[in-house]
Structure formats: C-alpha cells, structure tokens
C-alpha cells in the first residue's frame, strides 16, 4: 500500500482511458490498413530495378503520420471538449503528473502501434515487388533501420500532436497548427534553412534516407515517393 497516489496510479488511469475508446482502436486499425494498402500498391508499382524500393513501400507513412498526429491531438483535446478533464483533475489535482502519465501511456502505445503498422506495411509491400526489381529485406541493416525509425516517427509525431493539443486545448486549432508545422512549413521553404532539420517531415525523410546515399532527400521531402522507370 502506498500512502498517496503515484505516477503508476495515474498511468493506470490513462491506460484504461486510452483502451476504452473505440475511436482510438478504429484510428489505429485504419492506419494499419492504409500502411498495408499503400505498401502493396507502391511495391507493385515500383519498376525501376535500381529504385529505392524501401522508400516507396513506406510511402504510407504520410497517411500514418496524419492519423497518429490527429490521434495525439484528440487524446488531449477530447478531455476538454467532453468535460472529462474535471473528473481527471478531481482525482489527480497535480496537472504535470497527469500530462506525464498521458504522454507516457500514449507514447508507448503509439510506439508499439507505429512499429506494428510500419513493419506490416513493409512486409506486405515487398511481397508484391516484381521479380526484376531488387527486393529489400529486413536482414539488411539499412533497411531494418529505415523501417524501425519510420515506425518510431509515427510515435513522435503522435507526441507532437499531444503536445499541441495540450497547449491549444481545441482540436480544430491544434490540428491546424499541426498541419502547418508538419506539412506546410517544409513546402514554405523552411526546409532550406538550418531550422529545417528539426521539421518532423524531414526527420521522417531522413530516416528513410538511411537506405540509400540520396543527398537530395533532405530537400525533396514532399516528393519522396519516386516511381522512376529505369
């Protein structure tokens, strides 16, 4: 018996909250289906024998990152929009502890789910690669690293969503800020500045870039799916 509530009590509350919302499960299932579907389509359509097949197959990460980011936003903003936050703070009046527990439980869930959907998408994708094209395998360290880091990226973007949801508290505003940061800022030329290396999209592109010596990677993030024909 403890004499007062601890982090593990709060983490248990947050874990129960996370796994008892159907919308969370549906979003993760949708991400899984999307990553597999896009992985298969990209694998099937890659015809350049020397193309970066791993990069193409992981194209579903664009969809996955939107879903994980929005999920991260909603995990926090739905507390405020529904009024659950009043019950939460009545139980645990220490707000930093609630935030830490929420970030830890959501972060771990998003990491496991992110790796799961990314590996599933990759394995589904390589199964459909044409005979003439070099088929990447997880036994290649560079490929394994690209897939694993792409999964971790989904977790990180989810946590960025959670952070924005905590700051803004309103879903629409937080999602707008998120889209601006993740998808618009790279296009707006920030990518070329020193700050560019911290833009989430480019972190993702760089984790993919580990598969190939591809110097253009960091500046061509929006076009990172390439179906070049030999």
């Amino acid at each position, binding site marked *: *018996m*403890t*004499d*007062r*509530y601890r982090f593990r*009590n*709060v983490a*248990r*509350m*947050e874990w*129960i*909250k996370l796994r*008892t*919302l*159907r*919308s969370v499960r549906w979003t993760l299932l949708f991400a899984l289906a999307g990553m597999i579907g896009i992985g298969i389509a990209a694998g099937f359509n890659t015809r350049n024998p020397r193309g970066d097949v791993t990069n193409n197959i992981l194209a579903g990460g664009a969809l996955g990152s939107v879903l994980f980011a929005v999920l991260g936003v909603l995990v926090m903003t*739905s*507390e405020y929009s*529904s*009024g*659950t*936050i*009043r*019950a*939460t*703070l*009545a*139980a*645990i*009046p*220490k707000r930093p502890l609630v935030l830490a527990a929420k970030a830890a439980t959501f972060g771990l869930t998003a990491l496991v789910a992110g790796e799961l959907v990314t590996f599933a998408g990759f394995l589904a994708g390589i199964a459909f690669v044409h005979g003439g094209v070099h088929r990447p395998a997880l036994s290649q360290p560079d490929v394994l690293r690209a897939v694993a880091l792409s999964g971790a990226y989904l977790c990180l973007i989810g946590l960025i969503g959670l952070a924005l949801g905590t700051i803004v508290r309103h879903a629409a505003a937080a999602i707008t800020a998120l889209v601006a940061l993740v998808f618009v800022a790279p296009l707006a030329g920030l990518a070329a500045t020193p700050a560019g290396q911290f833009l989430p999209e480019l972190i993702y592109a760089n984790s993919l870039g580990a598969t190939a010596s591809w110097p253009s990677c960091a500046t061509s993030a929006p076009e990172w799916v390439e179906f070049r024909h030999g």
Partner: protein
Amino acid sequence: MIEAHGLTKRYGQITAVDHLTFDVRPGVVTGFLGPNGSGKSTTMRLILGLDAPDHGTVKVAGRGYHDLPFPLREVGALLEAKAFHPGRSARAHLHALAASNAIPASRVDQTLRLVGLTAAASRKAGQLSLGMAQRLDIAAALLGDPPVLIFDEPVNGLDPEGIRWIRNLMKSLAAEGRTVFVSSHLIAEMALTAERLIIVGAGRLLADTTVTELSASNASLEDAFLALTSGSAEFRATGSTP
C-alpha cells in the same frame, strides 16, 4: 469538514468571492444559497483546487485539496454536469477513476448499483439521458466512499423524480455522518433538503444559520432569503455580476 477562512477570489475588476469564512460540519446537509452570480460556483472551485484563491485558505479534511493523498477518498464532487467522455462506457469511466486513487475495482460495480446505473453501465455514456448522466457524475463522486461531498446545483434540469432521488441521497449521506455541502439558488429546494444554510450575495457571507432559525424570523423562508439578498440583487442590477 470544510473550513474556509477569509477566502477571496478576483477576476479582473470583479470580486467573485469576498473574504468568505465558514465551516461545513459533518452529519447534516448544509445548503450554500445565493442568487445567480453570487460566487457559489467559484467557492466550490476553490475548495476543489481548480482555482487558486487570491487571499485566504480553504481546507477539506484538514488539508488543501492539492495535498490530499487520495482526493477521491476524501472528497466527492459534482460540479457542472457530464464530466465524462461520451464514447466511453460508464463502467470504464469509473474504472479509470478508481485506478487513479487506488480504489478497489469491486467498488465500481457497487457504486453503479448504488446510483441505479448497472443496466446501462456498458453502453456509451453519451447515450445516457440527462438524469442518468447526472447519476454517473454522482457515482464518480461516491466512488471513493468519501466523508465529504460537494454538489453544485445538483437538481438543475432534472425531473421531479430525479430531484427527489438526489434529495434523499444527500439526506442519507449526511445521516451516515458525512459532510454534505450543496449549492443552490432555489430556496424552496433547500428548505426541503438542508438543515444548515450558508447564504451568500455578491461573494460575501450574508448569513450562517439554520432553516428553522431563518423561517422563524420571517413570514416565509422566501421572504427571509429575499430580504437577506436584496443588497446583492441591487449589486446585480448594476450589471457588475461575473
């Protein structure tokens, strides 16, 4: 036991709660009465640590709310209605709260039975009627079997059956020796529910009395209440109410 001493809270120019000092004792229902905008909800938020007072202190079970080792086991509170996610079931909502304060999971079904929600416990809470949603919020308040209970305008929007149910619940909780503090702007409802009355207007304490005393001094309880709060009603008419 709730003890407020010199409690003061300002929002910009407006003093919502003005040097409020009172005790709420166990064993009886204490009504917290005042016109709309008289600072009742602000006082309750201060008791629960949702806002910090500018001056003064308020203690529950001898401590500030933030220092309670397991808040839900000391204080149960019903503030604005529907403090739950519409997509989560009533049972899951209570399980999460129970886990946070190391309350045994068996207490969840016990509490659901107590408020009559067992049949609807697995449904999405968003599908509950207003009266049933109110029962879920009350279940959350009772979950930790707390000795102190705080209800902010609990009968608002309820049908007569729901009102009577809450009234009887509050009386039986007080009869068990608990401290029950209930705010209302309805003098007739308080006359039926409360024994002691703390009356406020414009954030100030107007009377700390009993229903019996107050009705003895005037033709009716309503007359007594209106006589007491006439000063603060004038205050409201100037438009400076928060």
